[in-house]
Structures are given as structure tokens and as C-alpha cells.
């Protein structure tokens, strides 16, 4: 019995420890999966006509004639949609209609005087038009559908109507007819509710189709274009078709989200065709096409990352990392050579080793503090007055951070060079320095390279040290080493937490962080591959 229990416990132990490793793999998949899969959509997606317009106007890409043709067709569709919407809005907007009717009546009487009507006739027509105007205004202002309909019918069926044929006043009858449709379709006392909803619809419309071609160009780039991506079209049209409301469930209960179909709300109104188009014809209007937007990697972004790519961020990251390497590699390798080949086990050397280990354990934010206090506020003003945090100080800070990584990796690589190589060189009469330079270092190079690549990836991904030493979230592209720069790491932070605009474009959010992850992982994979080659070679010899 006891043995069975021991065996069961043994199996349990195996299962648990195996599960721990499985958890690791799972975590890797769970962390990387959603970020990379969504990040890819920044480059691979279905683009719309608006995207072509954006690319043409901002970056001058694409064939002008072709874009103009497809835009003309596109604007034809959107024009019709806006027309339906505008007409319906006007039908609801009482005060605007009333003032319109008044101005029509005024124009009409002016016209009468202009054509020189006899005085009696003039007075009669003027009074009649004034009566109709007042009657229509009353109908417009009424909340009671029945009354409004009755009044409008009276206007429309009046015998004197033919007298106004061909005059300015005929427009009033046309308006009355439109309004009759509206009044027949809905409760007029809910007019306020509708007009509030219509404002929301208008807002969504300009996001979906872009501003009306006749309208002025909005100042913000994000308002100048409609939905450039098919997934965004889908999302916006969904918001248009379904109205979300938060409804009270009862005392103390949390609010519940309810989706109401707008198509149904407006099903009896002239807006019906509007929603029919939204439901069925979007694909025809936008003509989505599969697009590989590789320029994402070189384009600048509009403020708020709404459109565009991550070019400046990538360049900034590369410049920072390479500069940091430039500062850290020479002292790193030299220290490693000294520690392995020259240093004995003296007290000084032990102190140096403790310092290297300490340096490796310092939190990254403390490097940031140090970089700010030493490089930015102390060292930089000595060489260049009025300089502030910039690429140079950031890369110097990073180089201090990766120094111990390079030293340790190089030490290990140099130590793993077989002693026989060194002995052979010394036996041939080479001095110690010559042995190191011509035999040991070349033999250790692949291992050193691995360490360099690993520290490269560390420097590329680290954010805290450059927070105050030269990274900015938004700003112009750096022109010299004395300007601050945007980086992928700081950008990923910023795009995730600070901006409301960036929440609207998850593909750009995830695209930025995916670019960072891919950059770092590619570097790491390179290091892993180089190392496995080395170990194979060592095993083979």
C-alpha cells in the first residue's frame, strides 16, 4: 500500500514538473500570440479607396489617373448616402425649416413685385402665401403627428396651389411633401431623440466615408480621411447599424449593454434606403483589396499614430543601439581579455569582478537616473552648452548598462578557447599580446559575437534607462546626435497607455510592439544559431 502511494506521488511529481515546463511554453504562446497576430495586420490588411487617397495625398504614391477615377466613383456613392442623410436631417430640423420657409416666402413676394403684378393681385397672393407659410410653420412646430399631417394635407390639396406653379414659392410645397413622409413615419414627439441620434450618425458617417468632398479640409489629419482599412469599415458600419445603450437592470444591478438595430428604428422613414446601402453595398463602395503596406516600416506617423508607420522609431532604435554598441564593445572586449589572460587572483581583480557583477544587477531605472545626472546634467554641458537629453546621452547610458553583459559573454568565449592554441602560439615565439590578438581573439570571435548580439537586443528593448536621457514619445525626426529621438520601446509604452486616439487604431498599437518584439527576437535567434554552430564545431573537433 505504501509503495503504491510512493509510486503515485512519484508520478504526480513528474506530472507537476512537466506541467511547469508546459506552462512556460503556454505563456510564450499566450504573450506573443495576440501581440504578433494583431501586429501583422499593420502591414497586411484589406485597404479601401480612402487608403489609396491617403497614400497619394500624403506620400505621393500610386497612379494619379486611376486614383481619381476610383475616387470619382466612390464620391458618387458617398454623395448619395450623404444626400439621403442630409435630407432626413433637414426634415427633422424644425427651426431650420421654419426659417427656410420664411426666406422662401420673402423671396417670393420680392419676385412678385419684380414682375410688376397689379396691386390687388399682389395683396391677395401675398396674404395667401403668408397664410400657407404660417400654416406650414405651425405644422412643423407641432408635436402631434395627426395634427401636422392634417395641416400639411390641407396645404398640399389646396385649390390655389396651381397658381404658384413655376414660382419660388413652389419649393414650400416640395418641402411640405418631404415633411409629410417624415411625419407619417415617426412620432413627432420623439423628434429630439432622433435628432440626437442623427448627430451621432453624422459623426460616424464622416469617420466612415471621410468629410463631404465639398466641405473644407479639416485641420486634423485623422479627420481628413474616411476608413482606410476594411476592418475599420466593418467596425464603423457595425456602430452605425447597431446603437449601444446601457440599460438599468433593476435596483443595485449593474448596467447591461443592449444593442438596438438602427435599421429597425428607422425602418419606416426615408432613412431606410440609407441603412440598406450600409448593410449591403459597402463592399461595392469601398472595394477592399488585399494590401501589403511594407512602407509601414519607413513611413512617419501622423500625430497620435492614427495613420502612417513607424519609420522614425525604427531608425531611432537602430541608431541608439548601434551607438551604444560602439561605446561598449571596445572596453567590453578589452576588459574580458585582461580578466582572462592577464589578471591573476589579486585583490584589485576581485574588486573589478565584484564591480562588474554589481553593474549587472543595477535596476534599469537607476541607470536612467545615473544617465540623467551624469551624462545629461553633468558631462554634456561641459562640451556643448544649451544641450539637453539627446541620442548621445541615451546611447552612453545604454552602453554602461550593457557593458557587463559584453564583458561576461566575452570572458566566457575567451576562456573556452582551447589552451593548446595559446600554447602553440607562445611556443612559436609570439608575445602575449600577439597571441591574444592573432590567435585567442579570432578563435573566440563567434562566442563574443553571440554576446554582442544578445546585448544588442537588450539595448534595443530597454526603455527605463532612456526615459529621461534622450527618448521622446512624439516629436520631429532627430537631425543630429544632439537631438532626442523616438524609439520603438518608448513608442510602445506611449501608444499603449497615453493616447485615446491610438486606442482607435489597435493595428498600429500592436504593429509598433510587434516590430520591437520581432527585432529583438530575430537578434536572439541569430545569437542562438551562432552559438549552436559553435557548440557543434567544438563537439566535432
Amino acid at each position: 500500500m505504501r509503495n503504491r502511494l510512493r509510486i503515485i506521488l512519484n508520478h504526480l511529481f513528474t506530472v507537476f514538473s512537466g506541467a511547469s515546463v508546459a506552462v512556460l511554453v503556454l505563456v510564450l504562446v499566450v504573450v506573443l500570440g495576440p501581440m504578433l497576430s494583431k501586429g501583422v495586420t499593420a502591414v497586411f490588411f484589406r485597404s479601401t479607396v480612402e487608403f489609396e487617397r491617403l497614400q497619394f495625398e500624403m506620400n505621393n504614391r500610386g497612379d494619379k489617373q486611376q486614383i481619381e477615377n476610383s475616387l470619382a466613383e466612390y464620391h458618387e456613392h458617398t454623395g448619395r448616402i450623404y444626400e439621403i442623410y442630409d435630407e432626413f436631417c433637414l426634415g427633422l430640423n424644425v427651426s431650420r425649416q421654419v426659417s427656410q420657409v420664411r426666406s422662401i416666402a420673402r423671396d417670393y413676394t420680392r419676385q412678385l413685385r419684380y414682375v410688376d403684378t397689379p396691386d390687388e393681385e399682389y395683396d391677395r397672393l401675398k396674404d395667401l402665401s403668408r397664410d400657407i407659410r404660417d400654416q406650414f410653420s405651425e405644422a412643423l412646430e407641432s408635436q402631434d403627428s395627426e395634427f401636422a399631417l392634417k395641416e400639411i394635407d390641407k396645404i398640399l390639396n389646396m385649390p390655389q396651389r396651381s397658381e404658384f406653379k413655376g414660382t419660388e414659392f413652389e419649393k414650400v410645397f416640395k418641402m411640405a411633401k418631404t415633411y409629410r413622409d417624415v411625419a407619417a413615419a415617426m412620432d413627432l414627439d420623439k423628434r429630439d431623440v432622433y435628432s440626437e441620434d442623427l448627430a451621432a450618425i453624422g459623426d460616424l458617417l464622416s469617420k466612415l466615408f471621410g468629410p463631404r468632398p465639398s466641405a473644407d479640409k479639416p485641420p486634423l489629419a485623422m479627420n481628413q480621411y474616411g476608413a482606410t482599412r476594411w476592418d475599420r469599415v466593418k467596425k464603423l458600419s457595425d456602430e452605425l447599424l447597431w446603437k449601444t445603450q446601457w440599460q438599468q437592470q433593476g435596483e443595485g444591478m449593474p448596467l447591461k449593454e443592449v444593442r438596438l438595430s438602427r435599421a429597425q428604428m428607422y425602418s419606416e422613414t426615408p432613412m431606410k434606403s440609407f441603412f440598406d446601402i450600409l448593410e449591403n453595398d459597402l463592399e461595392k463602395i469601398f472595394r477592399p483589396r488585399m494590401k501589403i503596406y511594407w512602407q509601414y516600416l519607413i513611413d512617419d506617423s501622423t500625430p497620435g499614430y492614427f495613420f502612417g508607420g513607424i519609420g522614425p522609431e525604427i531608425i531611432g532604435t537602430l541608431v541608439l543601439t548601434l551607438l551604444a554598441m560602439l561605446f561598449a564593445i571596445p572596453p567590453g572586449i578589452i576588459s574580458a581579455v585582461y580578466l582572462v589572460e592577464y589578471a591573476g587572483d589579486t585583490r584589485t581583480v576581485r574588486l573589478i569582478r565584484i564591480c562588474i557583477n554589481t553593474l549587472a544587477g543595477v535596476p534599469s531605472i537607476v541607470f536612467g537616473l545615473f544617465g540623467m545626472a551624469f551624462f545629461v546634467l553633468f558631462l554634456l554641458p561641459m562640451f556643448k552648452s544649451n544641450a539637453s537629453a539627446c541620442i548621445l546621452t541615451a546611447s552612453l547610458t545604454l552602453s554602461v548598462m550593457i557593458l557587463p553583459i559584453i564583458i561576461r559573454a566575452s570572458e566566457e568565449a575567451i576562456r573556452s578557447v582551447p589552451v593548446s592554441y595559446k600554447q602553440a602560439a607562445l611556443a612559436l615565439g609570439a608575445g602575449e599580446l600577439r597571441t591574444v590578438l592573432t590567435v585567442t581573439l579570432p578563435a573566440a570571435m563567434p562566442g563574443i559575437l553571440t554576446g554582442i548580439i544578445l546585448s544588442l537586443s537588450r539595448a534595443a528593448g530597454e526603455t527605463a534607462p532612456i526615459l529621461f536621457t534622450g527618448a521622446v514619445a512624439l516629436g520631429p525626426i532627430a537631425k543630429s546626435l544632439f537631438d532626442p529621438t523616438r524609439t520603438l520601446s518608448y513608442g510602445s509604452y506611449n501608444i499603449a497607455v497615453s493616447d485615446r486616439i491610438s486606442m482607435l487604431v489597435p493595428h498600429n498599437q500592436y504593429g509598433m510592439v510587434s516590430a520591437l518584439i520581432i527585432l529583438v527576437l530575430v537578434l536572439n535567434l541569430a545569437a542562438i544559431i551562432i552559438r549552436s554552430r559553435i557548440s557543434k564545431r567544438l563537439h566535432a573537433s
Partner: protein
Amino acid sequence: MQGKVIKNKYSEREAADFTRPLLLTPAEDMKGFLTEKISRASLFTVTCVSVLAVLLILIFVLKEGLVFLKSDEAKRFLTSTEWTPTHEANPVYGALSLIVGSVYVTVTSMLIAAPVGVLAAVYLSDIAPFKLRQVAKPVIELLAAIPSVAYGFFAVLVLAPLLQNKFGMVTGTNALNASLILAVMALPTIISITEDSLSAIRREIREASYALGSTRAETMIKIVIPAAHSGIIAAVILGTMRAIGETMVVWMASGNATQIPSPWWDITSSVRTMTATIAGEMGEAVKGSLHYQSLFAVGGVLLVSTFVMNLASEYFMSRVRKGGKG
């Protein structure tokens, strides 16, 4: 005839090399000696860069921090839980809740990461077949390689909504979220060092245990893990250092509310750590102000605590090395 052939094959200078005396002249000897000495000295000088870096870090971080500690406000630094440095009339610099916040998320993350990490290391060193080990190594390395800001991004945009909507927490950015991510980030360190120390335990010890009839679980739990305990402690300390020094993740995921969780086990409350405070406030602090200096003092606390942990881990690692030899 013969001489001509030789002349064709080697140049004058090369031919002279063959006839050079093997003994160096005093001048040449001196030259070689000096070269070695000078190169040695310059290599040593460059090596001291790292020492210099550590010294400079100490000087520049602690200098500002000490100025703060000399001021009147310092009395409440370690006793008050109120951190309101931007308050105009009455700024209070009480870092206690920040320190507690750091310790809170770090300890929680270690409670998750240490068991999982040790078990995974045991599996990889003693149980897993060779091929699986070949796969697991890169997985662990990739986990370690993912930049911390990417983990923070994941915490804010993926994990936080999940915790908030699926698990009904008041806010998704809280101590639990930060601790989970920190645990994942500390796992690679813990696993690789624990695995090293487990494989440093000699084979005979395991074999003796098996020979006495123990199962694998008993061998591992009663013999190998106790034998490797100093390595495991060092691994956990290094993992703790990784977690307590981590900035971006806690800044993004912990909620940044200056408070001590109450009741203390309420893991779903928001906390604020020392690193996040520095990252969040240094951008606005005016240079030379008390706020600026107080942030350096917080950085000094971080620095000193990692120094202590570093020394402790070195002590345990040296015991592993000695154990491996003996």
C-alpha cells in the same frame, strides 16, 4: 646554380629571416618587454572603466539622495505612507507605501515564480528527454529576451481587460497583474540558474539514492534539491532582483495608486512601486528641487537593496562553486 634557385624562391628579406639569430638583441628584448608591459597597463586601465562606472553611479545617485536625507522632510521618508510631492502647500515625501508596493509585487511574483521555476528546472535537468530539453532551452531564452515594455503592453492591453471583464475585478491594472507578469519575467533567470546548480550535484549522489530504493520524486525532493539549495537560493535572489528593479511592467500594470493594500491579502488592489514612481515623476521634477532629490533617494534605496541582494547571491553562488569542486 644552387644559390640562384634559392634566390628565386624567397626574397632577400625572407631569406634573412632564416639566418636570424634565435637570441634577441638587448634592444629587441627591451622592445618586446615594453610592449607587453604597456599593453598590460593599458588593458588594465580600460578594464577599470567598469569600476569607474559603478563608482560614478554610486556617487551621482547617492549624492542627490543624501541631500534629501539631510533635509527636514527625511524624517517621514521611511515612516509616512503619504507620497504627495507635487502638493503645493504641504508636500509629503513618505516612501513607505512605495517600498511596501515594491516588496508586495516582488514577493507575490516570487511566490508564483519560485515553485514553478524550481519544478521546471528539475524537469529539465532530471526528467525531460534530451530532445525536449533542446526545445525548452530556446523557449526560456525567448521568454527572457522579450523586452519589458512588450510585457507591459501585454499587461495593459491584453491581461488587464481580461482580469477586469472575466474575473470581475474593479480594475485590471493591479498588484496581481503586475505580479503575474513579473513572475513570467523572473522565471528564465530562476530556471537557468537552478538548473545549473542541479546539474552541479554529482551523479553519484543521485545513484546512491536510487540504489537505496527511492523513487525519483524522493531523490529529487529529499536529496538533490537540498544539496543544491544554495544555488536555488541564489536563483531566487537573482529573480527577485529582476522583479524589484523592473520598471516598465509595474509602471504600466500595477495601477500606480499610492497605497498599502488593505486588508494586506487584497491582491487585486492597485499599488505603486519605487521604480514606477521614479519613471513616472522624474520627467516633471525640477532639477535641484526637493522632489527631484527625493526621487534620487528612492533610487538610492533601490540601489542599496540590489547591492545587498547581489552580495547575498554572490555568497550563495560561491558556495555552489565550492560544492561543485568538493
